[in-house]
């Protein structure tokens, strides 16, 4: 419900609401800009979320996608 409690509690000071938007829109560049890789996967955002959104799971997927993209770019540069 965009209450912002996830952002209040995040130890990495991420804007988790923006990361959730990035997941729903499928916008990887936006997730990178919002600092998805700084996530430490503590799960506090999922714990406090009053709408029970799977926030930490979604950020985990964003991180995985980012790592995959980066790995692919590195491989292309090497070849």
């Amino acid at each position, binding site marked *: *419900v*965009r*209450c*912002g*409690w996830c*952002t*209040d509690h*995040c*130890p*990495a*000071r*991420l*804007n988790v*609401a*923006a990361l959730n938007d990035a997941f729903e829109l499928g916008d990887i*560049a936006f997730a*990178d*800009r*919002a*600092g998805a*890789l*700084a996530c430490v996967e503590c*799960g506090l955002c*999922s*714990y*406090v*979320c*009053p*709408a*029970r959104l*799977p926030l*930490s*799971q979604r950020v*985990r997927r964003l991180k995985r996608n980012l790592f995959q*993209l*980066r790995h692919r*770019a*590195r491989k292309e*540069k*090497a070849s």
Partner: protein
Amino acid sequence: MTRGEKLTTAPASHKRQRFFPIESPYLHAPETARTVYTITFLAACVPVLAGLVFFGWAAAIVAVLSVGTCVIVERIFYRVARTPALLGRSHAYLTGILLAATLPPFVPWYVPVIAGAFAIILGKAIFGGVGHFLWQPALVGRLAVAVMFPVLLTPQTWPLLGQTQLVRGDIHQAREPETYRRWARAEPPGDADAFALTRPIDVLKRLYDAEEPAFSGIAYVPGELDRAPPTLTDALPPIHDLLYGARPGAIGETCAVLILVAGLYLIYRNYVTGHLPVAMLAGAALVAAIAPVHLAGPEGQGRLIWHPFFHEGVAVGLVFVLYHLLSGGMLLAAFFLAPEMTSRPVTRGGQVLFGLGCGAAAMLLRIYTTLPIPTYTAVLAMNTLTPTIDALWRPRVMGQKWYERFLLLRPRPRADADAE
């Protein structure tokens, strides 16, 4: 442990569960969106109940119609549209009571019905329901009826029940009293149940009229006995009338003490961040303190006073600013309408910006325009800017330099390709 079962509730199962199996964390905080909305609804009932006391059963009818319309329209819409209404009902109750709080008590039955339908359909449902709308739905409904019935909703005089007719009096039988100083000792003229009074916000607005300055000063100051008698505080009710709510206005916006108590409870529950109401009231107070006023000089000519806060001493200035904050819907907007969870910015700094903008814009609109609902229009206008504020004021992510959060368009160059 009695709360144990609640704490370990698994996330709601839906179709995505197949693709996203349950992952950690397995615990959830006991507070859900439904409890948030229910408790906010109960808190918003408190000022509306005060309105029922001061405006009688007509206000109760408006409140019941408004809440009922919101709930029924919500149900019908999601039945017709065949989309799941997540958390819809508790939020519909909240929208209905907030809408009732912003409506005048004397409106006929179709006004809250139309406003409720607009609030739910245009304000909430077409955006995708709770959590997705851009403008506060109750204010969308209020704006819709303010545009549709401009004459009906903004009369010259607004009714207020006399103290012998509280709760049971008829608000429609109002008559203008010849002299009205304060509510506590006054009786409505004749056999009328209610006074017909000018709202304090309309009286205050005459200060800013350049053509015909209506007042010779803000307050009576000892030592300036020769001044022409009509001052601003002569035309306004005493300030404790405004504090306990004996002033004409919309149903839920009059009783300042109860709005403050309910709002402080919301802050205590962490549903509202304290920054936002404080910033909004501070922005409004700042504009009220420095906006130039027009006073009538000794010979009747107008003179421009640049800082009304310092013009007659700080004590009078404080009372003047307090009159501005307590009149109109400023307190209701600061504690209930602007901090609506979905339509406010997420971060603390963004909320401070949002609140300052709301307060300043509300005061400017109130002073310099003839809009019927200046405060609510200002909140709606700032709701429009919420995504911009969210993009502007981002929290400093761990590992970033302090200045990097202000680099708006250029993201921090990540070490993808040039890492090697």
